[in-house]
Protein backbone atom coordinates (compact mmCIF):
# COMPACT_ATOMS: atom_id res chain seq x y z
CA UNK A 1 0.00 0.00 0.00
CA UNK A 2 2.90 2.33 0.65
CA UNK A 3 3.95 2.67 -2.98
CA UNK A 4 0.39 3.55 -3.87
CA UNK A 5 0.27 6.24 -1.21
CA UNK A 6 3.52 7.78 -2.47
CA UNK A 7 2.26 7.70 -6.06
CA UNK A 8 -0.94 9.37 -5.01
CA UNK A 9 0.93 12.16 -3.25
CA UNK A 10 3.28 12.55 -6.19
CA UNK A 11 0.41 12.94 -8.64
CA UNK A 12 -1.35 15.46 -6.46
CA UNK A 13 1.85 17.46 -5.93
CA UNK A 14 2.63 17.48 -9.64
CA UNK A 15 -0.80 18.76 -10.60
CA UNK A 16 -0.80 21.45 -7.90
CA UNK A 17 2.70 22.63 -8.75
CA UNK A 18 1.96 22.85 -12.46
CA UNK A 19 -1.38 24.58 -11.82
CA UNK A 20 0.37 27.19 -9.64
CA UNK A 21 3.00 27.88 -12.30
CA UNK A 22 0.39 28.00 -15.06
CA UNK A 23 -1.72 30.39 -12.99
CA UNK A 24 1.26 32.67 -12.41
CA UNK A 25 2.15 32.67 -16.09
CA UNK A 26 -1.48 33.15 -17.08
CA UNK A 27 -1.96 36.19 -14.89
CA UNK A 28 1.28 37.72 -16.16
CA UNK A 29 0.23 36.96 -19.72
CA UNK A 30 -3.12 38.71 -19.33
CA UNK A 31 -1.49 41.69 -17.65
CA UNK A 32 0.75 42.06 -20.68
CA UNK A 33 -1.54 41.02 -23.52
CA UNK A 34 -5.05 41.23 -22.08
CA UNK A 35 -6.19 43.92 -24.51
CA UNK A 36 -4.72 42.35 -27.62
CA UNK A 37 -7.05 40.68 -30.08
CA UNK A 38 -7.32 36.95 -30.08
CA UNK A 39 -6.89 35.02 -33.29
CA UNK A 40 -6.81 31.27 -33.01
CA UNK A 41 -8.74 30.55 -36.16
CA UNK A 42 -5.52 30.12 -38.06
CA UNK A 43 -3.05 27.54 -36.97
CA UNK A 44 0.43 29.03 -36.96
CA UNK A 45 2.31 25.87 -35.99
CA UNK A 46 4.79 27.72 -33.83
CA UNK A 47 7.13 25.00 -32.73
CA UNK A 48 7.42 24.81 -29.02
CA UNK A 49 10.17 22.48 -28.04
CA UNK A 50 11.52 21.99 -24.54
CA UNK A 51 14.50 24.24 -25.15
CA UNK A 52 12.48 27.23 -26.35
CA UNK A 53 10.08 26.89 -23.39
CA UNK A 54 12.94 26.87 -20.88
CA UNK A 55 14.68 29.85 -22.46
CA UNK A 56 11.39 31.77 -22.63
CA UNK A 57 10.68 30.98 -18.99
CA UNK A 58 14.15 32.17 -17.97
CA UNK A 59 13.44 35.43 -19.80
CA UNK A 60 10.27 35.68 -17.68
CA UNK A 61 8.19 35.59 -20.84
CA UNK A 62 4.67 34.72 -19.59
CA UNK A 63 4.13 32.22 -22.40
CA UNK A 64 7.34 30.52 -21.33
CA UNK A 65 6.22 30.39 -17.71
CA UNK A 66 2.91 28.82 -18.72
CA UNK A 67 4.90 26.46 -20.90
CA UNK A 68 7.03 25.43 -17.91
CA UNK A 69 3.88 24.70 -15.93
CA UNK A 70 2.61 22.54 -18.78
CA UNK A 71 5.93 20.73 -18.91
CA UNK A 72 5.61 19.97 -15.18
CA UNK A 73 2.12 18.66 -15.83
CA UNK A 74 3.26 16.36 -18.62
CA UNK A 75 6.20 15.25 -16.48
CA UNK A 76 3.89 14.16 -13.65
CA UNK A 77 2.69 10.90 -15.25
CA UNK A 78 6.27 10.27 -16.43
CA UNK A 79 7.49 10.62 -12.86
CA UNK A 80 4.79 8.18 -11.84
CA UNK A 81 6.14 5.59 -14.25
CA UNK A 82 9.63 6.19 -12.89
CA UNK A 83 8.34 5.53 -9.40
CA UNK A 84 6.76 2.30 -10.55
CA UNK A 85 10.09 1.28 -12.08
CA UNK A 86 11.86 1.80 -8.77
CA UNK A 87 9.19 -0.17 -6.99
CA UNK A 88 9.51 -3.09 -9.43
CA UNK A 89 13.30 -3.00 -9.12
CA UNK A 90 12.92 -3.32 -5.37
CA UNK A 91 10.56 -6.25 -5.81
CA UNK A 92 13.03 -7.78 -8.28
CA UNK A 93 10.19 -8.32 -10.73
CA UNK A 94 12.26 -8.72 -13.89
CA UNK A 95 9.30 -8.86 -16.27
CA UNK A 96 7.87 -5.61 -15.05
CA UNK A 97 11.21 -3.85 -14.87
CA UNK A 98 11.46 -4.46 -18.61
CA UNK A 99 7.84 -3.54 -19.26
CA UNK A 100 8.16 -0.29 -17.32
CA UNK A 101 11.40 0.60 -19.08
CA UNK A 102 9.69 0.21 -22.44
CA UNK A 103 6.91 2.57 -21.36
CA UNK A 104 9.47 5.04 -20.04
CA UNK A 105 11.40 4.88 -23.31
CA UNK A 106 8.27 5.62 -25.35
CA UNK A 107 7.37 8.51 -23.04
CA UNK A 108 10.84 10.04 -23.18
CA UNK A 109 10.93 9.67 -26.94
CA UNK A 110 7.78 11.74 -27.29
CA UNK A 111 8.77 14.19 -24.58
CA UNK A 112 12.16 14.97 -26.07
CA UNK A 113 10.63 15.69 -29.45
CA UNK A 114 11.21 12.50 -31.32
CA UNK A 115 9.92 12.50 -34.86
CA UNK A 116 6.70 10.65 -35.54
Amino acid at each position, binding site marked *: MRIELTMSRLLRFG*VLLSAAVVLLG*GVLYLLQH*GRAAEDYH*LFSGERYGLRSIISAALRLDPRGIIGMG*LVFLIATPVARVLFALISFLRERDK*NFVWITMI*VLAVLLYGFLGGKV
Partner: protein
Amino acid sequence: MTQLDFALITGAGAVLAGFLGSLTGLGGGVVITPMLTILFGVDIRYAIGASLITVIATSSGAAAAYVKEGFTNIRVGMFLEVATTIGALIGAALAGVFAPSVIAVIFGLVLIYSAIVSVHPPKEVVDGTPADPWANTLRLNNNYPTPQGTRNYTVHQVGAGFGLMSFAGVLSGLLGIGSGALKVVAMDRVMRLPFKVSTTTSNFMIGVTAAASAGVYLHRGYIDPAIAFPIMLGTLAGALIGSRTLAKLQNQTLRIVFAIVIFFLAAQMMYRGITGNI
Protein backbone atom coordinates in the same frame (compact mmCIF):
# COMPACT_ATOMS: atom_id res chain seq x y z
CA MET B 1 -12.56 39.38 -28.85
CA THR B 2 -9.69 40.39 -26.60
CA GLN B 3 -7.32 37.92 -24.98
CA LEU B 4 -8.83 38.71 -21.61
CA ASP B 5 -12.38 38.04 -22.78
CA PHE B 6 -11.28 34.86 -24.48
CA ALA B 7 -9.55 33.60 -21.34
CA LEU B 8 -12.48 34.45 -19.09
CA ILE B 9 -15.17 32.93 -21.27
CA THR B 10 -13.27 29.78 -22.19
CA GLY B 11 -12.25 29.46 -18.56
CA ALA B 12 -15.88 29.62 -17.47
CA GLY B 13 -16.81 27.04 -20.07
CA ALA B 14 -14.00 24.83 -18.86
CA VAL B 15 -15.24 25.05 -15.26
CA LEU B 16 -18.64 23.84 -16.41
CA ALA B 17 -17.06 21.09 -18.50
CA GLY B 18 -14.88 19.94 -15.62
CA PHE B 19 -17.81 20.01 -13.20
CA LEU B 20 -20.14 17.98 -15.41
CA GLY B 21 -17.30 15.72 -16.44
CA SER B 22 -16.44 14.79 -12.89
CA LEU B 23 -20.08 14.23 -11.94
CA THR B 24 -20.81 11.94 -14.85
CA GLY B 25 -17.39 10.29 -14.93
CA LEU B 26 -17.03 11.13 -18.60
CA GLY B 27 -14.21 13.63 -18.07
CA GLY B 28 -14.23 17.24 -19.22
CA GLY B 29 -11.85 16.52 -22.08
CA VAL B 30 -14.52 15.33 -24.51
CA VAL B 31 -16.37 18.63 -24.38
CA ILE B 32 -13.38 20.96 -24.59
CA THR B 33 -12.53 20.37 -28.24
CA PRO B 34 -16.10 20.84 -29.54
CA MET B 35 -16.52 23.89 -27.32
CA LEU B 36 -13.38 25.53 -28.64
CA THR B 37 -13.93 24.68 -32.30
CA ILE B 38 -17.69 25.23 -32.53
CA LEU B 39 -18.24 28.09 -30.11
CA PHE B 40 -14.96 29.96 -30.53
CA GLY B 41 -13.85 29.01 -34.00
CA VAL B 42 -10.47 27.90 -32.74
CA ASP B 43 -8.45 25.75 -35.13
CA ILE B 44 -8.94 22.09 -34.25
CA ARG B 45 -5.23 21.55 -33.69
CA TYR B 46 -5.11 24.12 -30.91
CA ALA B 47 -8.31 22.61 -29.52
CA ILE B 48 -7.00 19.06 -29.27
CA GLY B 49 -3.82 20.43 -27.72
CA ALA B 50 -5.75 22.18 -24.97
CA SER B 51 -7.98 19.14 -24.55
CA LEU B 52 -5.00 16.83 -24.08
CA ILE B 53 -3.62 19.06 -21.34
CA THR B 54 -7.01 18.92 -19.65
CA VAL B 55 -6.96 15.13 -19.86
CA ILE B 56 -3.59 14.90 -18.12
CA ALA B 57 -4.59 17.36 -15.43
CA THR B 58 -7.95 15.88 -14.51
CA SER B 59 -6.88 12.24 -14.74
CA SER B 60 -3.77 12.77 -12.61
CA GLY B 61 -5.86 14.59 -10.03
CA ALA B 62 -8.50 11.87 -10.00
CA ALA B 63 -6.01 8.99 -10.10
CA ALA B 64 -4.46 10.40 -6.94
CA ALA B 65 -7.71 9.67 -5.14
CA TYR B 66 -8.35 6.24 -6.63
CA VAL B 67 -4.91 4.74 -6.15
CA LYS B 68 -5.19 5.20 -2.42
CA GLU B 69 -8.32 3.09 -2.20
CA GLY B 70 -6.57 -0.03 -3.45
CA PHE B 71 -8.67 -0.79 -6.52
CA THR B 72 -6.12 0.15 -9.15
CA ASN B 73 -4.23 -2.77 -10.62
CA ILE B 74 -0.84 -1.19 -11.25
CA ARG B 75 0.58 -4.23 -13.04
CA VAL B 76 -2.28 -4.47 -15.51
CA GLY B 77 -2.10 -0.72 -16.01
CA MET B 78 1.63 -0.66 -16.63
CA PHE B 79 1.49 -3.65 -18.97
CA LEU B 80 -1.31 -2.15 -21.03
CA GLU B 81 0.48 1.19 -21.09
CA VAL B 82 3.01 -0.36 -23.45
CA ALA B 83 0.13 -0.63 -25.91
CA THR B 84 -1.45 2.73 -25.18
CA THR B 85 1.74 4.81 -25.30
CA ILE B 86 2.93 3.29 -28.58
CA GLY B 87 -0.61 3.75 -29.91
CA ALA B 88 -0.53 7.37 -28.72
CA LEU B 89 2.60 8.09 -30.73
CA ILE B 90 1.00 6.54 -33.80
CA GLY B 91 -2.14 8.61 -33.20
CA ALA B 92 -0.13 11.78 -32.83
CA ALA B 93 1.64 10.95 -36.08
CA LEU B 94 -1.74 10.56 -37.78
CA ALA B 95 -2.92 13.87 -36.34
CA GLY B 96 -0.16 15.50 -38.30
CA VAL B 97 -1.21 13.75 -41.48
CA PHE B 98 -5.03 13.73 -41.43
CA ALA B 99 -6.92 16.81 -42.55
CA PRO B 100 -8.74 18.72 -39.79
CA SER B 101 -12.08 17.75 -41.30
CA VAL B 102 -11.22 14.05 -41.06
CA ILE B 103 -10.19 14.51 -37.43
CA ALA B 104 -13.51 16.27 -36.77
CA VAL B 105 -15.57 13.42 -38.19
CA ILE B 106 -13.63 10.74 -36.28
CA PHE B 107 -13.97 12.88 -33.16
CA GLY B 108 -17.73 13.01 -33.57
CA LEU B 109 -17.99 9.23 -33.91
CA VAL B 110 -15.86 8.59 -30.83
CA LEU B 111 -17.86 11.17 -28.90
CA ILE B 112 -21.09 9.35 -29.67
CA TYR B 113 -19.57 6.05 -28.60
CA SER B 114 -18.40 7.55 -25.30
CA ALA B 115 -21.84 9.00 -24.64
CA ILE B 116 -23.49 5.63 -25.18
CA VAL B 117 -21.02 3.85 -22.88
CA SER B 118 -21.60 6.48 -20.22
CA VAL B 119 -25.35 5.93 -20.19
CA HIS B 120 -25.14 2.14 -20.58
CA PRO B 121 -22.04 1.11 -18.65
CA PRO B 122 -20.80 -2.41 -19.44
CA LYS B 123 -22.26 -5.17 -17.31
CA GLU B 124 -19.78 -6.66 -14.93
CA VAL B 125 -18.79 -10.17 -16.04
CA VAL B 126 -16.92 -11.80 -13.21
CA ASP B 127 -16.86 -15.56 -13.69
CA GLY B 128 -14.84 -18.42 -12.33
CA THR B 129 -13.14 -19.39 -15.58
CA PRO B 130 -9.38 -19.82 -15.39
CA ALA B 131 -7.15 -16.86 -16.05
CA ASP B 132 -5.21 -16.23 -19.23
CA PRO B 133 -1.80 -17.95 -18.95
CA TRP B 134 -0.15 -14.58 -19.61
CA ALA B 135 -1.98 -13.18 -16.62
CA ASN B 136 -0.41 -15.86 -14.48
CA THR B 137 3.08 -15.41 -15.89
CA LEU B 138 2.99 -11.66 -15.37
CA ARG B 139 1.19 -11.92 -12.06
CA LEU B 140 -1.65 -9.70 -13.18
CA ASN B 141 -4.30 -11.40 -11.09
CA ASN B 142 -5.16 -9.57 -7.93
CA ASN B 143 -7.87 -8.74 -5.42
CA TYR B 144 -9.86 -5.72 -4.34
CA PRO B 145 -11.62 -4.61 -1.16
CA THR B 146 -15.36 -5.06 -0.79
CA PRO B 147 -17.58 -4.51 2.23
CA GLN B 148 -17.57 -8.30 2.58
CA GLY B 149 -13.77 -8.49 2.62
CA THR B 150 -11.13 -8.85 -0.10
CA ARG B 151 -12.29 -10.56 -3.27
CA ASN B 152 -9.97 -12.21 -5.75
CA TYR B 153 -10.25 -11.82 -9.51
CA THR B 154 -8.41 -13.14 -12.52
CA VAL B 155 -7.48 -11.52 -15.81
CA HIS B 156 -8.56 -12.92 -19.19
CA GLN B 157 -7.86 -12.46 -22.90
CA VAL B 158 -4.70 -10.49 -22.35
CA GLY B 159 -3.85 -10.38 -26.07
CA ALA B 160 -7.21 -8.97 -27.10
CA GLY B 161 -7.05 -6.42 -24.29
CA PHE B 162 -3.61 -5.36 -25.46
CA GLY B 163 -4.88 -4.91 -29.01
CA LEU B 164 -7.87 -2.84 -27.92
CA MET B 165 -5.64 -0.69 -25.77
CA SER B 166 -3.38 0.07 -28.73
CA PHE B 167 -6.45 1.32 -30.56
CA ALA B 168 -7.49 3.38 -27.55
CA GLY B 169 -4.00 4.88 -27.52
CA VAL B 170 -4.20 5.78 -31.21
CA LEU B 171 -7.52 7.56 -30.60
CA SER B 172 -6.03 9.39 -27.65
CA GLY B 173 -3.08 10.64 -29.67
CA LEU B 174 -5.19 11.51 -32.69
CA LEU B 175 -8.02 13.33 -30.94
CA GLY B 176 -6.49 14.66 -27.74
CA ILE B 177 -8.86 12.66 -25.55
CA GLY B 178 -8.42 10.19 -22.75
CA SER B 179 -10.20 7.25 -24.40
CA GLY B 180 -11.40 6.34 -20.92
CA ALA B 181 -14.63 4.83 -22.20
CA LEU B 182 -12.88 2.44 -24.56
CA LYS B 183 -10.30 1.51 -21.92
CA VAL B 184 -12.98 0.66 -19.39
CA VAL B 185 -14.87 -1.46 -21.93
CA ALA B 186 -11.68 -3.31 -22.88
CA MET B 187 -10.77 -4.11 -19.29
CA ASP B 188 -14.28 -4.77 -18.07
CA ARG B 189 -15.81 -6.77 -20.93
CA VAL B 190 -12.80 -8.30 -22.65
CA MET B 191 -10.37 -8.83 -19.79
CA ARG B 192 -13.17 -9.44 -17.28
CA LEU B 193 -11.88 -7.18 -14.54
CA PRO B 194 -14.34 -6.03 -11.87
CA PHE B 195 -15.95 -2.71 -12.73
CA LYS B 196 -14.30 -0.66 -10.02
CA VAL B 197 -10.90 -2.08 -10.92
CA SER B 198 -11.45 -1.27 -14.60
CA THR B 199 -12.49 2.31 -14.00
CA THR B 200 -9.72 3.14 -11.53
CA THR B 201 -7.02 1.42 -13.57
CA SER B 202 -8.28 3.15 -16.71
CA ASN B 203 -8.00 6.47 -14.91
CA PHE B 204 -4.51 5.52 -13.83
CA MET B 205 -3.52 4.90 -17.45
CA ILE B 206 -5.14 7.88 -19.10
CA GLY B 207 -2.57 10.39 -17.87
CA VAL B 208 0.38 8.33 -19.06
CA THR B 209 -1.20 7.74 -22.48
CA ALA B 210 -1.86 11.45 -22.88
CA ALA B 211 1.67 12.35 -21.77
CA ALA B 212 3.07 10.17 -24.56
CA SER B 213 1.47 12.27 -27.30
CA ALA B 214 1.66 15.55 -25.37
CA GLY B 215 5.34 15.87 -26.11
CA VAL B 216 4.67 15.53 -29.81
CA TYR B 217 1.83 18.06 -29.59
CA LEU B 218 4.09 20.55 -27.83
CA HIS B 219 6.81 20.29 -30.42
CA ARG B 220 4.33 20.72 -33.26
CA GLY B 221 2.83 23.82 -31.65
CA TYR B 222 -0.61 22.31 -30.99
CA ILE B 223 -0.52 23.42 -27.36
CA ASP B 224 -0.73 27.19 -27.29
CA PRO B 225 -0.03 28.52 -23.77
CA ALA B 226 -2.61 31.31 -24.06
CA ILE B 227 -5.37 28.79 -24.87
CA ALA B 228 -4.18 26.03 -22.57
CA PHE B 229 -3.99 28.03 -19.37
CA PRO B 230 -7.64 29.09 -18.89
CA ILE B 231 -8.83 25.68 -20.09
CA MET B 232 -6.54 23.72 -17.77
CA LEU B 233 -7.24 25.84 -14.71
CA GLY B 234 -10.98 26.04 -15.42
CA THR B 235 -11.38 22.30 -15.85
CA LEU B 236 -9.38 21.55 -12.71
CA ALA B 237 -11.48 23.97 -10.70
CA GLY B 238 -14.70 22.52 -12.10
CA ALA B 239 -13.59 18.96 -11.42
CA LEU B 240 -12.62 19.87 -7.88
CA ILE B 241 -16.04 21.40 -7.22
CA GLY B 242 -17.69 18.41 -8.85
CA SER B 243 -15.84 15.94 -6.67
CA ARG B 244 -17.04 17.73 -3.56
CA THR B 245 -20.65 17.87 -4.71
CA LEU B 246 -23.00 15.35 -3.21
CA ALA B 247 -25.15 14.63 -6.26
CA LYS B 248 -22.81 12.05 -7.73
CA LEU B 249 -22.11 9.19 -10.07
CA GLN B 250 -25.25 7.11 -10.05
CA ASN B 251 -27.44 9.95 -11.20
CA GLN B 252 -28.78 8.50 -14.42
CA THR B 253 -30.75 11.63 -15.35
CA LEU B 254 -27.62 13.72 -15.29
CA ARG B 255 -25.82 11.23 -17.51
CA ILE B 256 -28.66 11.21 -20.00
CA VAL B 257 -28.71 15.02 -20.16
CA PHE B 258 -24.95 15.08 -20.61
CA ALA B 259 -25.21 12.38 -23.27
CA ILE B 260 -27.77 14.43 -25.19
CA VAL B 261 -25.51 17.48 -25.09
CA ILE B 262 -22.65 15.32 -26.32
CA PHE B 263 -24.75 13.86 -29.14
CA PHE B 264 -25.52 17.37 -30.27
CA LEU B 265 -21.88 18.42 -30.15
CA ALA B 266 -20.83 15.26 -31.96
CA ALA B 267 -23.36 15.90 -34.72
CA GLN B 268 -22.08 19.45 -35.08
CA MET B 269 -18.47 18.27 -35.27
CA MET B 270 -19.28 15.68 -37.91
CA TYR B 271 -21.42 18.07 -39.93
CA ARG B 272 -18.72 20.68 -39.97
CA GLY B 273 -16.10 18.12 -40.78
CA ILE B 274 -18.07 16.76 -43.71
CA THR B 275 -18.90 20.19 -45.11
CA GLY B 276 -15.28 21.23 -44.62
CA ASN B 277 -16.34 24.00 -42.31
CA ILE B 278 -14.02 23.23 -39.45
